[in-house]
């Protein structure tokens, strides 16, 4: 009997495009003021916008700049920490659309490899395996190799 390939399940619905499509975060653009939002919104949240829309969902840039980061040595409850445990990095990416997005970074990157302002690129990767053995996936950003 052949092993069936592991199914990939998005950790949250409607936040990002799933493989085999190219991975993108899904945001919203206000067609009145041009501002972008993530996660998606139903109406424009820019207090300086003269209207509250119309808004449309858009795919956000896969690349952005590292705004800040940290490496965490103690995982909180709820989080499926790497097993066996290794410290994990998370941070904020500033996208060209003018929003900062919270993200996991790595795996495999520690503070010595990361510099504020460096170019980062989004991927979809396993967050944890659920009880049925399927992969629960989410977004991460990695430094762009130059």
């Amino acid at each position: 009997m052949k092993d069936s390939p592991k199914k990939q399940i998005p950790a949250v619905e409607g936040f990002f495009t799933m493989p085999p499509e190219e991975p993108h975060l899904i945001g919203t653009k206000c067609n009145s003021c041009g501002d972008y939002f993530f996660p998606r919104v139903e109406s424009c949240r820019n207090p300086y916008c003269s209207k509250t829309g119309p808004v449309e969902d858009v795919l956000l840039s896969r690349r952005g700049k590292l705004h800040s980061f940290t490496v965490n040595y103690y995982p909180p409850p709820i989080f499926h920490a790497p097993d066996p445990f290794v410290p994990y990095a998370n941070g904020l990416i500033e996208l060209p659309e003018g929003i900062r997005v919270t993200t996991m970074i790595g795996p495999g990157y520690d503070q010595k490899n990361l510099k504020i302002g460096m170019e980062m690129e989004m991927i979809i990767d396993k967050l944890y395996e659920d009880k049925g053995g399927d992969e629960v996936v989410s977004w991460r950003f990695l430094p762009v190799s130059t």
Partner: protein
Amino acid sequence: MRKMREIAVLGVGRHVWGKFPGKAFDDLAEEACLTALNDAGVDRKDIEFVSGGVDPYGGTGGMALGILAGNTVSHRLGLTVPATSCYNGCATGGWALKTAQAYITAGFCDMAIVFGASAPPKGFFAPTGKQDEFDPADSDFQRFRLFGSTNVSGFAQGALRRMQLYGLTEDDLAEIKVRASQYAQFNPYARYRKVYTKEEVLNSPMVSYPLHLLEVCATSDGAAAAVVCSLEKAKQYTTRPVIISAIGIGYTSYNDPGYARGAFGSNAKPLEHGTGLENSMEYRAGKAAYEEAGIGPEDLSFAEVYDLSCAMKLDWFEQLQFCKTGEAEALFRSGATELGGRLPISPSGGIAATGEAIPAQALYFVAEVADQLRGRAGGRQVEGARVGLCVNSGAGGNSQAIIMKR
């Protein structure tokens, strides 16, 4: 916002900060309130209004006792007057005070008691149930689930920016804790009164780089209370009351550079509205308070800042206009912000000394400033203290700067 009239602080009370397994939040609150009444020399029958901070951990499973904190504690004090409760994260105690200020200055009452108390579980503030017990649409739950992002993780990202942009060092962070501990030894309300060495700080476990365990606040139990009244009423009790000149409110802005607006990130775009310091809720609170009190940072005798991490202490130097952006490290290293310096900052030892009891913490500092202004701060006393500032900063976008004088 319109300028509010001044009110007086007749008395304050604090339970010592720490962990007290045998005590519920309302046990702590009752002690703090009775101390405040005694300090004020006010009979409880003269209290006309109770304004309490909600303890989200109070009561069984976070049920009514903690949410109805105002009523719960009112009953325990034997009061039968209007009571209300509010919650605004770390700004809760300050908002309880603001509520009383509004009631008094609007003429609804002359005298009120204000309190905040909390007895949270140990460890990181985090969702405490199981994965499948949470609403997937709860963005704060998703923050923990998707990114393992604790509050300390957010503090660390702020610290990291200071390191890479402004030259903050790990040595500075440890020195901030060392100096705070030297004041904490004189603070009878502090949870941590041990004087630490730099080596002890740097050898404590790394929590979220670059912050070590001894450089972030611990979740703590605590309670603080104040008896406040109109200036007219205060004349019946004292000729020299402590006066609250301003409670400046800073709400988060569309492009607040902090981390307050959302669990998934924030807006960074509209350059025409500024993207710098002036958009932070902390800066806006300080500015509002200076305007309301009609003074500037140069008029302060001292300040107590909300140092949830050692790096956040330096952020406040800039947010409260003690120096320009990027200059807080130099100001700290100069010694000007130490006891005996030009502007002592957190001579109590700050939150580094107490840990944080969320709904009580802002009132802890109000009590601390009141004690300084009355010359009751012992080994941490600021000589000739006349005008003091204390601040708080709450999740979701609440910040306050409170200016007091005597």
